């Protein structure tokens, strides 16, 4: 088994050529429930470049986590099913793979870390064995080599005394250390794509800063592309290069991170940005603290009972009859900046003025 350094080099060489590592096209994941058909992900397309960090933002029920689970082919069936679209990882369409073929991809080519490290680690297995598991499935037959690699990985993610820690159980680690162990496990086989689903939402703010720093460092060093799923706009602004905003199962806006925060074109994105309180240090020069937060009125609609036309229209200050009649086309509005809104020019003027 090659050493970590050597493997990192080969990976870097492999990723030197730019281009998309993952291409998702018109993904549709539906749930067939007693209360009717729920279109959790409804025609989502995006591509992920090698070594890039792409954030998917949205509130509960917007379909961001189901998108992630679809990519891993971990959507529970029944009630869920990927009913359409394709997800090509380096040219291989994951939608078409059977369970056995998918097992060879999952954990090796694409892997995932979850929000709550305590519930996603096995409490009765040592950290070392859990990391070895993926390695024994994909990389090596030698338990000893796998364990050595586990120690190497724990060292890489900044866990002190890795020799000792591989023998410990999850409950013996703090929350931050558990999340580090999860990252070590996810990256053990050097995947091309790492999906991080709210990786820091359960952590304290000082620990969150440590974990985000670690993910950024590993992405630089290993060249892994990262899909970061979060509801925290602060985390997005500090870690992502490109951002997708989702609402009610669809993509409503996509842009580079600087462009999106400077010129949001969808009223939902703009509403999200205006509704969060900002510390003095978060405000640009001269900007005063809001005495009242701007609310987005109403609630996220139930996916089983979506309004006709634009799904955001009932909560939108810009909504017109047109919005209530037809869902707006998803178009490129500015260079590299896409949005689905009939009134994006008005939104832009409101944000800039």
């Amino acid at each position, binding site marked *: 088994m090659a050493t970590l350094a050597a493997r990192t080099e080969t990976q870097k060489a492999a990723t030197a050529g730019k281009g998309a590592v993952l291409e998702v096209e018109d993904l549709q994941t539906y749930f067939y429930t007693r209360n009717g058909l729920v279109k959790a992900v409804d025609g989502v397309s995006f591509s992920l470049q090698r070594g890039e960090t792409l954030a998917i933002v949205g*509130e*509960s029920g917007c379909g961001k986590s189901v998108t992630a689970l679809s990519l891993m082919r971990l959507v529970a069936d029944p009630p869920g099913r990927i009913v359409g679209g394709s997800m090509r990882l380096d040219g291989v369409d994951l939608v078409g793979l059977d369970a056995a073929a998918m097992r060879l991809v999952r954990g090796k080519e694409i892997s995932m870390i979850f929000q709550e490290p305590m519930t996603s680690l096995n409490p009765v297995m040592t950290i070392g064995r859990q990391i070895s598991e993926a390695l024994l499935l994909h990389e090596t037959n030698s338990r000893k080599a796998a364990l050595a690699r586990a120690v190497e990985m724990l060292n890489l993610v900044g866990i002190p005394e890795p020799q000792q820690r591989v023998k410990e159980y999850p409950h013996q680690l*703090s*929350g*931050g*250390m558990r999340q580090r162990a999860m990252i070590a496990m996810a990256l053990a086989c050097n995947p091309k794509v790492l999906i991080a689903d709210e990786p820091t939402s359960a952590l*304290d*703010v*000082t*620990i*969150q*800063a*440590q974990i*985000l*720093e670690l993910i950024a460092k590993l992405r630089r060093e290993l060249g892994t592309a990262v899909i970061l799923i979060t*509801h*925290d*706009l*602060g*985390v*997005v*602004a*500090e870690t992502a290069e490109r951002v997708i905003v989702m609402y009610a199962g669809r993509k409503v806006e996509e842009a580079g*991170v*600087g462009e999106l*925060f*400077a010129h949001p074109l969808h009223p939902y994105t703009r*509403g*999200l*940005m205006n*509704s*969060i*309180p*900002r*510390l*003095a*240090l*978060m405000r*640009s020069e001269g900007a005063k*603290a*809001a*005495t*009242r*937060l*701007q*609310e*987005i*009125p109403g*609630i*996220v609609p139930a996916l089983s009972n979506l309004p006709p036309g634009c799904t955001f229209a009932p909560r939108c200050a810009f909504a017109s009859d047109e919005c209530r009649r037809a869902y707006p086309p998803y178009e490129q509005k500015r260079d590299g900046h896409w949005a689905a809104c009939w009134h994006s020019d008005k939104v832009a003027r409101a944000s800039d003025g």
Partner: protein
Amino acid sequence: MAEGANGSAGGPVLEVEGLKKHFPVRKGLLRRTVGYVYAVDDVSFTIGAGETLGLVGESGCGKTTIGRTILRLIEPTSGTLRLAGHDISKLGRSELRPFRQQMQIIFQDPFSSLNPRMRAGEIVAEPLKVHTDLGRAARRERVAQLFDRVGLRAAQMDNFPHQFSGGQRQRIGVARALALNPKLIIGDEPVSALDVSIQAQVINLLMDLQRDLRLSYLFISHNLAVVEHISHRIAVMYLGRIVEHTDKTTLFTKPLHPYTEALLAAVPVPDPAIKRAKKVVQGDVPSPLKPPPGCHFHTRCPYVMDRCRIEVPALREVEPGHTVACHLR
């Protein structure tokens, strides 16, 4: 925005003095006490009428225990609690009852803090049933008023909690807390479980209620931006102790404790145009079972000195209205 403590007519609504809560740790067959968790270790503060005190800190710092101890849902180990001048820390159950009406709590999770088998109207009427002699019709009328006050429709009174969204459920929790016209409401992470767009709705509601009803809040949260927005003064806690306490403007522009500094530096900024040097504080919060000697923060503090490892820094007023517990100040 309501004035601070000084604007009140008759002294502070709540005074907490030297509050301690030590939980025994029991082990073995005989459940012998082998040690204590110092969840709250000598904490003092006051809250004036119409004022909000924000309590921030990371998990395990004791902020939730403080809230529950003030309500006497957890018995304090020692210390004094005065509600509008009356010492309530040693009152028995029945003596405490009239005071219970004056302080209420809103919980974090609107899913688990409402009884799923009760109708929303019954949930809000429950405190009225327990503490007042209002008849059924009068209660219903009061509940309808409360629903209107928190932005719910009176027609929704007969619905069950599962028929409401997360934000609406939190509104039911607020209505229940308001039912008895309390002076003090303790909010234990009241918006943390809500979606961003809904958070703003509930924060605005709480601030409107404070303005109109002159409520006092103890607002417990780990979200610094939310705490800054809603509070007048803020106390920062670390492992059971208050390490810094001042008005919100001073805390965020001139933090004096290294832990406050670390917290502020760690908050992700939702604006990619603002670049700042990131100083990520290393290490984990130590276990409250075995807190480090001296200053609890010394294991992670970038300015640590020998003295910090031995001597507990006292909470001193270094500038008028700004107290901090650090040997450097």
